[in-house]
């Protein structure tokens, strides 16, 4: 194979260096993550969550759910929350100016009555119309807040002000959580002795019907498996889990309030709050951790199609850019320890910038090829290398899943996953690149 060794171009060497460094880092992260995941699975056998469910020492947790025009689904959602396997739970439903019968349905079903509650506005939040509680004592943990329409962050901040729990979480309208989700996520707060747990999270997965799964949904599922098994666990080991897309999280209310709650005018609510909480802890030199549980505790009900994925991905780019702007002081700042010197730069260079690097490399190689400064065979070879690297990484994730979770007994299922891994760079990478530029354009044009 005629490689590009003799090409004197500095940029090509730089691209080569970037690829090799990226491979080394990813392999190290994957090994750490696999080991940590195995340790988690080994320990799981000895954890009896019912101990906490029945204990009076379990901490109070407030679940906040913001609703808008959900008359068809709200009753079912509240019912599911009330069935959670956790005693010390407070459920706060914020009716964010619904114009349908959402509130009336709740009032009727749960015998709600307005009460006058003094809201201690520890963080900024908009006005509240009425607060309701049920006259039926079995629903005493349910609080319904009716308020004029405002942004999501403001509604959540209202919920935080009203919440009496030591910990808070919010559940989006299209989320379905497992009955023991709160129980499992609350354990890290009680287990840590040397540092403060400021948040704990687990992955949210798309609810999919395996029989009618499309290639796109299989690719998304594979992507989830990959980040879950080969990335997140490694970052939690070094306490550097950053920019956590699709995590269902519980936060320490006190620290969230000290960080002024959710920020209006940003679309990345949890991600932004997590970053500010981390900044706060670093600035106050308090030992802290963000815990991660590699279990699927929450599902997202959403149709997986190209249009939705494109919209989601470009929104995600937008969120990352917003976060980059508001947290720019962290990067390469010694004051923020490993957050500023390792994890943030890693995320920026090897995660955020990847689509740009890919496009620049592609264009650059095309120019070199068409001006005959480099042979087309060399360009194709480089393309094949990048493609096979991506596939290998997915293969490692699939194999890890097979070995550690003893799943996929049917060869049929393994074949489907392998096909998804092979097709991912062809189908999904263009979506990622396109949505990156779409999201960036939205950010810079403020649309």
């Amino acid at each position, binding site marked *: 194979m005629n490689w590009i060794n003799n090409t004197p171009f500095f940029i090509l060497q730089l691209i080569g260096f970037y690829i090799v460094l990226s491979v080394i880092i990813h392999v190290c992260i994957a090994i750490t993550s696999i080991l940590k995941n195995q340790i988690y699975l080994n320990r799981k056998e000895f954890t009896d969550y019912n101990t906490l469910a029945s204990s009076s020492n379990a901490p109070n947790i407030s679940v906040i759910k913001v609703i808008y025009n959900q008359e068809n689904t709200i009753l079912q959602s509240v019912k599911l929350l009330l069935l959670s396997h956790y005693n010390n739970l407070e459920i706060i439903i914020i009716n964010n100016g619904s114009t349908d019968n959402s509130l009336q349905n709740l009032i009727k079903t749960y015998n709600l009555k307005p*009460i006058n*509650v003094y809201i201690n506005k520890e963080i900024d939040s908009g006005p509240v119309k009425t607060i309701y509680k049920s006259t039926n004592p079995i629903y005493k943990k349910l609080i319904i807040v009716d308020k004029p329409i405002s942004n999501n962050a403001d509604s959540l901040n209202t919920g935080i002000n009203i919440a009496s729990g030591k910990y808070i979480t919010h559940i989006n309208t299209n989320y379905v959580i497992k009955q023991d989700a709160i129980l499992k996520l609350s354990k890290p707060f*009680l287990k840590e002795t040397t540092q403060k747990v400021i948040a704990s999270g687990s992955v949210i997965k798309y609810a999919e019907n395996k029989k009618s799964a499309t290639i796109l949904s299989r690719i998304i599922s594979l992507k989830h498996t990959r980040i879950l098994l080969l990335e997140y666990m490694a970052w939690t080991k070094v306490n550097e889990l950053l920019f956590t897309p699709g995590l269902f999280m519980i936060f320490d209310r006190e620290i969230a309030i000290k960080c002024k709650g959710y920020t209006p005018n940003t679309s990345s609510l949890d991600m932004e709050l997590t970053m500010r909480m981390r900044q706060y802890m670093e600035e106050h030199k308090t030992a802290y951790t963000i815990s991660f549980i590699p279990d699927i505790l929450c599902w997202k009900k959403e149709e997986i199609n190209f249009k939705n994925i494109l919209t989601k991905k470009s929104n995600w780019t937008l969120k990352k850019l917003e976060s980059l702007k508001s947290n720019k002081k962290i990067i390469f700042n010694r004051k923020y320890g490993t957050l500023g010197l390792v994890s943030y730069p890693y995320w920026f260079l090897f995660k955020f910038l990847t689509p740009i690097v890919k496009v620049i490399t592609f264009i650059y190689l095309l120019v070199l090829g068409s001006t005959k400064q480099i042979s087309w065979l060399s360009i194709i070879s480089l393309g094949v290398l990048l493609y096979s690297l991506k596939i290998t990484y997915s293969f490692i994730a699939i194999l890890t899943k097979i070995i550690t979770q003893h799943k996929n007994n049917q060869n049929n299922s393994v074949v489907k996953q392998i096909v998804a891994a092979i097709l991912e760079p062809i189908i999904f990478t263009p979506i990622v690149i396109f949505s990156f530029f779409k999201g960036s354009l939205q950010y810079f044009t403020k649309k």
Partner: protein
Amino acid sequence: MLQLLFYITVYTSIVLLLMMFFFSYLNKVKKQKYSVWEKESNELINTFIFIDNNTVLELPDDIHTLKKNPFFRTFISQKIITAVKNFSGETTRNLKQLYLLLELDKDTLHDTKHVLGHLKTRAIRNVGVMNLKNFEEIVFENTNHKNDLIRIEAQVALIRLTGFKGLKFLNIITYPISEWYQIVLLRELKTLDPEKFKGIKIWLKSFNKSVIVFTLKLIANYHLFEFYPDTVKLLHHKNHKIRLQAIRTLAKIFNKNTPKELLSIFENETTENKIAILKELSSFKEQSTIPYLIELLKQETPTLQIVIIKTIAKIDTEGILLLEKIPNAHTPPLNNIILQLKEEQAYELD
């Protein structure tokens, strides 16, 4: 360099592909084998569960070959442990006998010295569940193990083996007991008949702060009134978590002096501890504390003001009338808080 990387990647991909199919096949075989074992071990366990007292317990002939298979031994060991956890009385005696007849205790002994943490933990857990008294020494040695999982399973197993006497590990442990593990230990103690505790005084002076907190929880849970003076002393401990637990414990063993003791430390406490004190005061319903609480309203933050007002209202149903007489009762935020309380009371009366 990139060429080398290319070849490595291609070969790795091929190897990974082959491994995926191999392990998938292995899982399939394993699953089939386990379903056969499941049936056989269920039959064996059921036979032992329903055997009456006078029958001599012995293993059926067909199990002798199978019991030599180490994977089957691990499998049936787990099944017996699960069964013992779900039954009580004579049944567990028979299952213990089955465990010994299969010589699983030898595996347990071997695994208690295993280098792999989860196997060691499993062995120690099995000792506790199967009540293998001759392992007490080994279990005790592991109660201060550096691995938290081994440590807690050893502590739980020791309690299962020797009852309240098992708490002797509190004398030696240097690692903290997390809140989670304290909950686990208290649940384990709940299953025992209460008896006289030995060592409380020593544990209350432990250098390990979590031991003090845990001991305070024991005093609260078992209403050990004789340790009231020791608990009061801990209200002045420099660690705020110990003070918090001391506040909660005093409320469980309270006497007429308790409200005074709690109010004496109020001023210099953390917000969390102040809220805990107010919560306990509201349960004592001691009217003499109301003037002090009204005085506090002038100094505290809105967050605490709400709690103070609620405390006053809970101590005395007429407390709201008293509140309305204080000078700033008609200005925000006090007027709003009082209004809320009035509605809450009316709401509760409904």
